[in-house]
């Protein structure tokens, strides 16, 4: 069965996805609140997989929760913590429970997270994980054995348009698409002219491209991202704009900027859609969409 997200991708409509972070623990209240608030507003929601290598409730469990609550999940799967047996097993389980979208990621280093001494796996890489999904869809596992009951997924991956240097990143990007990625979510972009340049290149490939939007919450947060997040560059004029916000008004300004960017991407048809990352402030996503004129 084709996922509603896949149908939306194929329909040519402007796609909006967002993120929901599973909790550190079993208290699912906030996660459920976010899912219920967003499930009818976005085309699909990503469930993050131990984001930044911080151990949390599993993305698979949270994806199941989205499904149970009537939403459309995109299961994030990193290659950091599971070898090819475990990844394939989780794909079988996901498929059996109606989870139809998977975002294939390499995963951050264990060293950056909260279990710094853990063994990292990286048995497969992100492009190989995309290829694994396509292999399993043909009824085979990576060992060459037949599957009793197959799988069907809409597979995606990511790209960092602002990577420095960019060329090695694009080689990987093309491998992901050749392996069968149907959609690509980008790392956060702020310079839309640069995004347009990137799309002149990326637009020639068959995958749908969703521009990553990270909500700016303050000028220091923007500076922090510039310094610490690979491939993210918030231009000075946006930092100044954030800094110009009245006391207590930075978040409102951030929503305004995110909304404005999404509107431009939509109106000028720069990308096929957007992926909004509100980083723990998912309740603000409807506000961002309203600011963009999308609801």
């Amino acid at each position, binding site marked *: 069965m084709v996922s509603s997200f896949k149908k939306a991708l194929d329909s040519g409509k402007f796609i909006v996805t967002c993120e929901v972070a599973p909790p550190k623990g079993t208290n699912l209240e906030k996660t459920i609140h976010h899912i219920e608030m967003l499930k009818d507003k976005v085309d699909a929601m990503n469930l993050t997989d131990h984001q930044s290598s911080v151990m949390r409730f599993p993305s698979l469990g949270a994806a199941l929760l989205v499904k149970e609550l009537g939403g459309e999940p995109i299961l994030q799967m990193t290659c*950091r913590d599971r070898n090819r047996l475990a990844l394939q097993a989780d794909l079988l389980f996901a498929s059996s429970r109606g989870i139809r979208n998977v975002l294939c990621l*390499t995963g951050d280093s264990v*060293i950056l997270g909260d279990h710094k001494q853990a063994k990292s796996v990286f*048995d497969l*890489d992100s*492009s190989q994980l995309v290829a*694994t999904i396509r292999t399993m869809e043909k009824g085979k596992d990576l060992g060459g054995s037949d599957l009793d009951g197959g799988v069907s997924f809409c597979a995606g991956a*990511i790209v960092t348009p602002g*990577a420095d240097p960019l060329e090695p*990143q694009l080689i990987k990007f093309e491998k992901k698409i050749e392996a069968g990625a149907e959609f690509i979510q980008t790392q956060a972009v702020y310079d839309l002219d640069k995004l347009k340049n990137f799309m002149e290149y990326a637009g020639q490939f068959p995958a749908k491209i969703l521009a990553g939007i990270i909500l700016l919450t303050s000028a220091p947060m923007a500076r922090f991202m510039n310094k610490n997040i690979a491939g993210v560059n918030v231009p000075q004029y946006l930092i100044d704009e954030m800094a110009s916000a009245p006391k207590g008004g930075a978040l409102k300004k951030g929503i305004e900027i995110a909304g404005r960017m999404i509107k431009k991407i939509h109106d000028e048809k720069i990308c096929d859609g957007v992926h909004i990352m509100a980083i723990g402030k998912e309740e603000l996503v409807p506000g961002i969409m309203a600011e963009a004129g999308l609801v």
Partner: protein
Amino acid sequence: MIRSITQQKPLEEIDELLKGLGRVFLIGCGTCTTLTHTGGEPELSTMRENLTGVGKLVTGQVVVPVACDNLTGEIIKDYGGQIDQANVLLVMSCAFGVQTIASQLKKMVVPALNTMFIGKETGMGRFNEICTQCGTCIIGETGGICPVTSCHKGLVNGPCGGTDKGKCEIDSNRDCAWTLIYNRMKELGRLDSIKKFQKPRNHHGEPMPGRVDLTEKTQEATAK
């Protein structure tokens, strides 16, 4: 030349390992740990002072030429008396040396060092891990730079999204292997080689622990 790269364990850990063992014989190595200043004459002398300071009796010390050589046992025999008096050998060689000594002398051994990697001196006092002996070498397609070793995640199809300005996401002092590979292949005019999709790796090119016995092959050939 390849070298075994070591680092001294914290003194607290060494103290803990030597708990209840009052008489210590010290062994260093004249090859790798002398080069890395972790187990040569000066380091043994410093260790001797540390041990004496915490009330240990050092019965003797020796820096053997090559601790991992099978002749090490013979060389150490000259120190038989001093070794007999000790109830532990504190070895300041890499783990190859420690294991060689342990297999040759019926004596409790304690390593004073952690063996970090088998590396190459790439500059004065600078050592890098460039091969992890995986058994399935792919550097013919990556310009002679090993991504399995030089990429923190061992990625074989290109960089992760964490690389920035040619450096690794875990440490801005470490080069991103894929930037190095890309630059070299571009220079060689062979970028096509790294555009080829690499299938999942065989992680058991040689199942751990590695074992090769050339005499088995000779015997097979003779039998035929």
